[in-house]
């Protein structure tokens, strides 16, 4: 084709030839110097001082409660390894180990397949050897060539509480995570444990620590002949200790109160965002995932219809029921859609279009104004009143209270819940698939709406602090930020507080089982009874308790428990009482 003639000059050519010669010549010189000039030095190094770097596992950071009581600890476990080398009959070795120490030979061969890297490197065969297994293997050492033990730190949870959904657990790193971190500094090796759920996962980087390294001399066949003296190893740097906001005593009471039930219980300090106790029931022993998991225990946990592995605190999603009336009432008041003297008549049910909506009190509440509608939790009042409002305005206010998005509490995998807007309903049911009935339902916290207990405690914290509370957290040293709720006039927040106080203290209040014995303890709250398709309604209670400048908020959810005022309120009262016993109260002041 020859489109343009080549006109490279001789000097251009020579410059590049010279460059190439210099570059490759430099490489040749360097290799010559290494392989010929310094050969003896490296030969000795390779022959005599074969150095192998063996990682030394760093112990994970410990986890304590708010006053320094231990929640998660480490203890050493022994791992049985084999260095295959010239070993020909693995099967026979595994059979022999089974006979001596009673470890299933199929498990040994399974682990061998899984962890094999090279025939010169030790392969882990079994972990968590008992003392009797260790001594039995040691007694028969002469007929078990090539086997060794490694001591590695392992996790256990010594405290009297379970706290399993908060602590989470650690698990052996999987292949995907392992290869994903290869480019980020090779911090993990096959067989390493890594935080998988809860605090253990959320603070993995903080708790993990840096593995150290020990240098071993190995002989020509790769057998370790001792520690390498000329090169000191690096000691492992243990992970950082973590102090949680959890109060061990309160947590113990909370777990006792929730025993035999399904649901969630949270107590927090709205002034700091600290969570003092957190139960997701039923739970499991945190030691379930440490050491060897017994098949039977696993089966029990997995087949339990109440799903003990589900973290109801952040991933259980429920309709909030009448607790949502706080938001409906705030909307009606803030937009001046209604005044507190206006009344509606409650006959126990309400006809709207071709549907009948019921009040929980089938005999009706008679003539109802706003305070009475909150105190006695009258649905019919809200069915009437909410028609002055717009569905999206109500949804927007709910979102300002943090519903519909994760709270950002320091636990992984938090659910967002659902706040139905017009757009959401149209997308789900079609333009004609829903009607104003959805607004009526939302006003009493029913229908499409779903919330998590964690969102509920953030919500009640916003109410308790008049719209601005520090973010929720479990780590005492966590950096908090301000969660900004809706900006309402202070008088309106105070008005809502008097209603919430009346819910508990009025003679017909639905929350009277939350009432306090002491006059100096201010209490208020709201009950909720969330209808659901899975049987009995879910019982809710959200409450605030205040003694001088110390505040505590509480959320109780009992799945399929019945009426919030009858089932959830007494539990909330018991835990708040514990939170304000003298020791707790005055230790903090």
């Amino acid at each position, binding site marked *: *084709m020859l489109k343009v003639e080549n006109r*490279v000059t001789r000097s251009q050519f020579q410059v590049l*030839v010279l460059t190439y010669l210099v570059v490759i010549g430099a490489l040749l010189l360097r290799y010559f110097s290494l392989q010929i000039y310094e050969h003896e030095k490296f030969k000795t190094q*390779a022959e005599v001082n074969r150095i192998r770097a063996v990682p030394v596992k760093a112990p994970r950071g410990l986890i304590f409660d708010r006053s320094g009581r231990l929640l998660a600890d480490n203890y050493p476990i022994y791992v049985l390894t084999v260095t295959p080398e010239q070993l020909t009959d693995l099967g026979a070795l595994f059979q022999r180990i089974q006979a001596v120490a009673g470890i299933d030979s199929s498990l040994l061969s399974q682990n061998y397949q899984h962890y094999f890297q090279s025939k010169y*490197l030790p392969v882990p065969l079994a972990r968590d050897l008992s003392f009797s297994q260790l001594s039995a293997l040691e007694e028969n050492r002469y007929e078990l060539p090539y086997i060794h033990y490694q001591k590695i730190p392992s996790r256990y949870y010594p405290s009297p509480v379970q706290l399993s959904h908060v602590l989470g657990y650690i698990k052996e790193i999987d292949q995907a995570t392992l290869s994903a971190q290869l480019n980020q500094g090779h911090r993990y090796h096959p067989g390493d444990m890594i935080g998988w759920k809860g605090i253990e996962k959320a603070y993995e980087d903080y708790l993990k620590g840096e593995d150290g390294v020990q240098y071993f001399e190995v002989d*020509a066949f790769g057998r370790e002949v001792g520690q390498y003296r000329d090169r000191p190893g690096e000691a492992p740097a243990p992970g950082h200790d973590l102090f949680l906001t959890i109060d061990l005593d309160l947590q113990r009471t909370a777990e006792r109160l929730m025993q035999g039930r399904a649901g969630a219980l949270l107590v927090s300090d709205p002034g700091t965002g600290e969570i003092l106790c957190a139960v997701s029931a039923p739970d499991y022993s945190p030691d379930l995932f440490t050491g060897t998991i017994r098949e039977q225990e696993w089966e029990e946990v997995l087949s339990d219809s109440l799903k003990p592995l589900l973290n109801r605190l952040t991933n259980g999603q429920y309709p909030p029921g009448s607790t949502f009336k706080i938001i409906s009432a705030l909307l009606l008041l803030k937009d001046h859609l209604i005044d507190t003297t206006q009344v509606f008549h409650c006959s126990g049910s309400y006809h709207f279009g071709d549907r009948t909506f019921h009040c929980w009190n089938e005999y009706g509440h008679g003539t109802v104004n706003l305070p009475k509608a909150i105190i006695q939790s009258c649905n019919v009042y809200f069915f009437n009143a909410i028609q002055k409002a717009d569905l999206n305005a109500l949804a927007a206010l709910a979102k300002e209270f943090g519903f519909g998005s994760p709270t950002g509490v320091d636990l992984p995998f938090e659910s967002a819940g659902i706040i139905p807007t017009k757009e959401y309903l149209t997308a789900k049911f079609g333009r004609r698939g829903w009607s104003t009935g959805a607004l009526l339902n939302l006003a009493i916290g029913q229908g499409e709406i779903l919330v998590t207990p964690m969102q509920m405690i953030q919500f009640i914290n916003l109410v308790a602090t008049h719209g601005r509370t520090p973010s929720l957290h479990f780590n005492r040293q966590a950096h908090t930020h301000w969660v900004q709720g809706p900006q309402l006039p202070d008088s309106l927040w105070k008005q809502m507080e008097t209603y919430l106080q009346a819910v508990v203290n009025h003679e017909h209040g639905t929350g009277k089982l939350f009432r306090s014995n002491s006059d100096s303890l201010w209490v208020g709250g709201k009950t909720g009874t969330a209808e659901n398709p899975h049987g009995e309604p879910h019982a809710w209670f959200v409450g605030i308790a205040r003694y001088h400048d110390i505040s505590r908020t509480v959320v109780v959810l009992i799945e399929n428990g019945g009426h919030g005022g009858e089932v959830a309120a007494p539990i909330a009262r018991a835990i708040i009482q514990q939170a304000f016993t003298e020791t707790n109260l005055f230790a903090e002041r």
Partner: protein
Amino acid sequence: MKTGTWLHDDFPVHVILAVLGLSLVGIIALISIGLSQPGAWYQHSYVKQILFLLIAVSLAYLVYRLPVSRIHKYAYTFYGLGLVGVTMPYFFHRVAGTHRWISLGGIQVQPSELAKVFLVIALARFLSDHKPENLKFREIILSMILVAIPVGIVANQPDLGTALILFAPLFPMLFWAGARPYHLFLFIAPLLSILTAFHTLSFSLWGILLLGIIYLSRPTLLAGVTVYFSNLFLGLLSPYFWGLLKPYQQERILTFLNPEKDPLGSAYQIIQSQTAIGSGGLFGKGFGQGTQTHLKFLPVQESDFILSVIGEELGFIVIAAVLITFAWLLIRILRTSYECRDRFVSLMAMGFSIIFLAHVFVNAAMTVGMIPVKGLPLPFISYGGSFLVTSYIMLGLILKSELKQLD
């Protein structure tokens, strides 16, 4: 065309033999590595490598048979497709934390490898469309933009090693095309001003060198003074700007420039790799006898550190043979590019030779600790399908420059 139609009679058989010889050395090293690996023989990497080699040679032949006019005509189309290619991994899941690979039916492909081919062709086309006397600042800037786009995408994947390789042909090709060396120098100078600024002696030496070069190039007084002082000024300001960055930003830049730094990692790798090569001596420890290799002291010994396996088991003799073969091959490519009558083909072949040289240098220098560890394979020798195929495709295109009669 006496020998039939499938090969031209001036076909450079010795070039092919040299390259296949290099690949053979690689396969021998892979077979040795396979000796101490678990699994049946057909699971070992050398079997896959032989398959890759067959594919690569066939593709090289197909490319060799393509008429030059076609390559010239569709140069920018290829370039566009190449850009789409390097963007593809962003639509796939990250592999090992980067967007380097796409997986096609279970095979992982690295499109940035092919970008090397497209980029050099496009650059050769652009530069060959301009006569040497027409290569002014405007053309230099345009060719820089041509290179900067794929380099930016690949660096963002992040794959700094490949980005460096993609950047490597730019200045040599501009020089080959006849751009004024002084102009090219003006573009490199600011970079050197920034880099030397952190070391007083280097910066002083650089200042003197800069003055000398400017003086010898005889620009107008105003231009010379401007260039000189703007460079000095840039250098003096850069430590200040560096200080303005937050520590985590500095850390991020340093990690980006040297991602492999870690306590158990690169320093240890280099010591082990040097020990392997040094202990090999003149004749090596013999095939399958490398203790460093078989005790798994060396990571990624199949791809990036394959020279340490060769050095340990086969000795300096084979290392020297490999390096001299590369030198002979690359200088031969330069000579044919110099003698080639077509400007486009000449630039293309020369650009590919730079890509090869950059790979050889970075890989061989890293293996013995002359430069920080960068994961780049050795052409024709290292294990890995994408780069082997790319290397042979480049070879097929280079052979175009050997033809007396261009179609």
